[in-house]
């Protein structure tokens, strides 16, 4: 029997201001993956999303693209990632979600990949180029066999009917893309976006919702959290890693996360 998952626990214990942080594995340097995860946890975030770098990340903007490229140049691969994550559960207790594109997983072998995820303690997956229908037909059974929750994206263009179908086929949380955009394309939250958040909030869907893309600071995190269970920060965090003082990587990460939560952070100096 699977024990209750870390994701379920989180959403049971906490219904608001959930902060998920995305970063790219093997970035800025190859062996930074686990130290960055530890720092995200120490800094006080709630979910860690680890990006699996890909040569052609079509849903990502320049910041994450560049981090993917650097990570690959550093020698990152799924094989390497699972080596790095092998002992992460000795120091990391937060839910860990792997995010990336299908092709590397297919080459690794879907079942083998899922098995490894379970072995090292990964809780879920976000795969932007895996559409719902293909998920249901080819992947759902394998994912659930290895205790992996799959998270779907929705965007302002997603119809009500489809949001409901996605809700029915989700059992972790739903990732609300804040605007029609790739990652990091726009920052700040407009009134129009807030109306979209409200519209979805009123649909009465069963899964918790996290808002991502374009969330970059205390203010946008606050606005997103007002309309959902929390938010996901990616590009803005990658910029922090990029500009961080290497000797004090953990300190800089901690300061950024605290700043997101309480507003006391000078974004202009670091991000």
């Amino acid at each position: 029997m699977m024990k209750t998952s870390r994701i379920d626990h989180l959403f049971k214990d906490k219904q608001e201001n959930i902060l998920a942080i995305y970063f790219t594995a093997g970035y800025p340097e190859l062996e930074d993956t686990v130290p960055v995860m530890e720092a995200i946890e120490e800094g006080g975030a709630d979910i860690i999303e680890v990006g699996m770098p890909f040569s052609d990340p079509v849903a990502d903007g320049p910041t994450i693209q560049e981090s993917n490229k650097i990570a690959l140049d550093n020698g990152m691969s799924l094989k390497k990632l699972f080596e790095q994550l092998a002992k992460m559960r000795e120091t990391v207790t937060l839910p860990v979600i792997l995010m990336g594109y299908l092709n590397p997983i297919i080459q690794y072998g879907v079942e083998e990949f899922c098995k490894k995820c379970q072995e090292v303690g990964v809780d879920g997956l976000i795969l932007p180029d895996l559409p719902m229908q293909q998920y249901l037909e080819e992947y759902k059974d394998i994912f659930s066999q290895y205790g992996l929750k799959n998270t779907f994206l929705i965007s302002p263009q997603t119809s009500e009917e489809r949001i409901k179908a996605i809700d029915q086929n989700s059992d972790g949380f739903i990732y609300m893309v804040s605007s029609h955009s790739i990652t990091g394309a726009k920052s700040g939250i407009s009134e129009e976006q807030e109306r979209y958040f409200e519209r979805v909030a009123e649909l009465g869907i069963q899964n918790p919702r996290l808002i991502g893309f374009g969330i970059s600071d205390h203010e946008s995190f606050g606005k997103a959290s007002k309309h959902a269970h929390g938010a996901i920060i990616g590009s803005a965090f990658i910029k922090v890693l990029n500009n961080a003082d290497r000797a004090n990587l953990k300190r800089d990460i901690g300061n950024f996360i605290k700043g997101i939560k309480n507003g006391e952070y000078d974004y202009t100096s670091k991000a």
Partner: protein
Amino acid sequence: MKIEVDKNGFYGKFGGAYIPEMLYPNIEELKEKYLGIIEDEDFKKKFSELLRDYVGRPTPLYFAARLSEKYKAKIYLKREDLCHTGAHKVNNTIGQILLAQKLGKKRIIAETGAGQHGVATATVCALMGMECTVYMGEVDMERQKPNVERMKLLGATVVPATSGSKTLKDATNEAMRQWINNPVDTHYIIGSVVGPHPYPEMVARFQSVISEEIKIQLKEKEGRENPDIVIACVGGGSNAAGAFYHYYNSPDVRLVAAEAAGLGISSGKSAATTVLGKLGILHGSRTLLMQTEDGQVVEPHSISAGLDYPGIGPVHAHLFDVGRGEFVAVEDKDAMKAGVELSKLEGIIPAIESAHAIHALNQIKYGPDDVIVINLSGRGDKDLETYIKWGEY
């Protein structure tokens, strides 16, 4: 086995629509509407009028006497090089711009490698008075300067793709990103039989005018609609799909696809996807894909920018998989020789892409009575600099 697309966009195990949810409404709209639109009588009439009066169709099916003599077969050239803008690409862009208008779209985006599809897109946008942005790898912009200027002259904005390897696949990534950012008013005109369903089938249908005409023309010249062999080059595979389309399910017609072997299959600088590729997913489609063991897409190489793509359209992966297509890999140097040879024998300077198809004559078996149609996908004007650098003529 019948070669056709199923309702989910698969040809056998290849195809589908592996796209981020942000594009789902666009793709779904296209999927639901495109057949209704393109089969509408009014649309068909407009499409064929433009192909006739603007593109210059039907393109001739030319009996190449001296080439036939040399290769000891009856060889016909389907003269797509005589299309307006110099290649078959315009058949597709005419179809898609009419479709975009029907869908009420205001802006057009496109990717381009060699610049031929970019030029064909900029051309139809000028024709229809629509705003046009073309994404092109920074490296390709340098390699294909005249086409960059042609696009600008036609009123298009050319945006360099600066990520990754800065070539066709990166230009495609960038166009997809821009579509995600502008899903409501923008139509993305993909230039080959690649991308998420319904693009591969839709582009093939627009290009299928090539084999439709071959049938009629060959009937006049040879008294039969079906040649023994059709040969076409394959980058993404749109000219090949057009030339094969009405022969897919005629087993008496051999379908030969010429891929670019670059500097040689095992040189590490090649674009021969059926030899070097494995099943994978790129640009929304499950197909054969050149990639590393870790599933990272590798940068292909071909002397012709139009064949410089790490995948092939799903229909071609399927033709290969079920043995319906014969795939040959033609090296850079052999394509160049064939280009020079055709120039001297027939007075036709082919695009280097098309020269790959010519050289395939040396790599397949046939008899003296065989009727062979080679799809001459484009003319060599854009490649003059490459011919000059090659020097051996």
